């Protein structure tokens, strides 16, 4: 029960903090809009279906953007604030402290998702008729949570890198590219697809699209949730070893 409380309070606290940051909130909404705008210009020559495909894809790009950059630097930020040692020394498991941070980051992406869909509707006339509203309402939070869990795995994996933010930044484009946001996976060489299948955003994107356009979204939602759970499990397993290593070498604050 205390674990759930810690997760909930941590999520609310960090969501409020991120919402107050212009970098995470304002830029989190505006930055993916630039890429969405370019995509809309490129796809508008095609069928209305192509434009809807781009609109849904661009809307999920923002969720990943909000997570990858911020999650990469999450521990570094605590290090700058001088709170990393306190969090590691706290009696609560470090995973319960970090997970709400990255979940809050991915939740911020909902602003970007809404803004992108609205931008597409108002500026490019892309009307979004959702075939399965209930499945859509299930697919979106599952995708957000899974991406947040992926961010958690990134954050704890980068605990010993002082420049983790640069690695987090680096992951923004590759995931946009190979998770089927704007490019069908069939266009990529065969060896890329297994990598895509290991990434929760791929399944989240498929689930949202299937729910919106009218398909069987449940299997994709299940895959997305399953991968998210796997990321969390791996994160929990590695965080102890990484923290022990950082403590043993006295590199937690210096790295």
């Amino acid at each position: 029960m205390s674990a759930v409380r810690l997760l909930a309070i941590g999520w609310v606290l960090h969501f409020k903090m991120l919402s107050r940051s212009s970098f995470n909130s304002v830029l989190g909404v505006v930055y993916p809009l630039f890429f969405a705008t370019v995509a809309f210009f490129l796809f508008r020559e095609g069928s209305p279906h192509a434009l809807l495909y781009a609109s849904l894809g661009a809307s999920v790009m923002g969720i990943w953007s909000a997570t990858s950059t911020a999650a990469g630097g999450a521990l570094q930020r605590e290090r700058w604030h001088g709170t990393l040692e306190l969090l590691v020394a706290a009696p609560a498991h470090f995973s319960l402290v970090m997970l709400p941070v990255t979940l809050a980051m991915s939740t911020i992406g909902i602003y970007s998702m809404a803004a992108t869909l609205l931008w597409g509707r108002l500026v490019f006339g892309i009307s979004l008729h959702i075939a399965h509203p209930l499945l859509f309402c299930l697919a979106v939070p599952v995708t957000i949570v899974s991406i947040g869990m992926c961010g958690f795995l990134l954050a704890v994996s980068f605990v010993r890198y002082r420049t983790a933010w640069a690695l987090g930044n680096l992951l923004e484009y590759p995931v946009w590219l190979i998770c089927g946001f704007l490019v069908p996976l069939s266009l990529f060489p065969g060896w890329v697809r297994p990598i895509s299948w290991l990434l929760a955003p791929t399944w989240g994107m498929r689930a949202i699209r299937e729910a919106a356009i009218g398909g069987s979204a449940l299997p994709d939602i299940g895959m997305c949730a399953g991968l998210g759970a796997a990321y969390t499990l791996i994160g929990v397993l590695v965080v102890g070893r990484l923290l022990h290593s950082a403590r043993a070498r006295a590199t937690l604050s210096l790295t």
Partner: protein
Amino acid sequence: MTGARIFFVGGLMSYRALFGWLSPWIFIPTFLVAPIFQILLFVYIGRSAGVESDKFYVIGNALQYCAIPCIFAMSNTIAGERYQKTLGYILATPAGRLPLFLGRSLPVIGNGVFASAFALSAGGAIVGIHVPASSIASIALVIVVTSASCTSLGLVSAALGLRVRETATLNNIVFGLLLVFCGVNVPLSELPGWMSFIAQGFPLTHGIEAARRLANGQSFGSVGGLIGAEALIGAAYALLGYQLLRLLEWQGRRLATLETA
């Protein structure tokens, strides 16, 4: 002589001290790998949408990526100093502002040229585009002019850093505007008229067009006007940036906001 020392030595020291980009952990992912993925992203989006050629996206994005080092680095001349608590000392010195700030732009231009040239070479090789050997030297010159022009815009951003605390947010927005407006991925003829009109006043627009024409085999002489326009726009932004720096420095002193903006 002092001015020349501030320009060259001060610029180099500032670059090394402020940005920490000489660390391979930052330099490689930010300037060498990320532009390749930006190129691949738009090449594949272009293939998916079935519009322009691969060469169009490779050249557009390789040149546009110089905006990252050029704009972010220049604005860090203010934001970085403030973060390190040295802005007050810098501005209290009697050093001439022209060599002080323009000196910092020289290594930044070099960085932008390297990032763009690498992205163009590596991205082009991965995607498999052909650029005539006779055009390579001309394209290199276009990259230099475009990087200088972008750095001038960065000088404006640096000046605004005297009044705006969130320079990272500002710079990302500038980067995004350049991505949308400058014909990087969407030809200017496909953009609404008002957008292509505004694009004429941005750095990158003419440089990218010149590089594309050169890559398609046109002569250097035929793109001389475009290169001249890119250089002129860069000079205008440099002048504007310098004047803004002086004005906002004076205002920052008067309002005591240099450290708190």
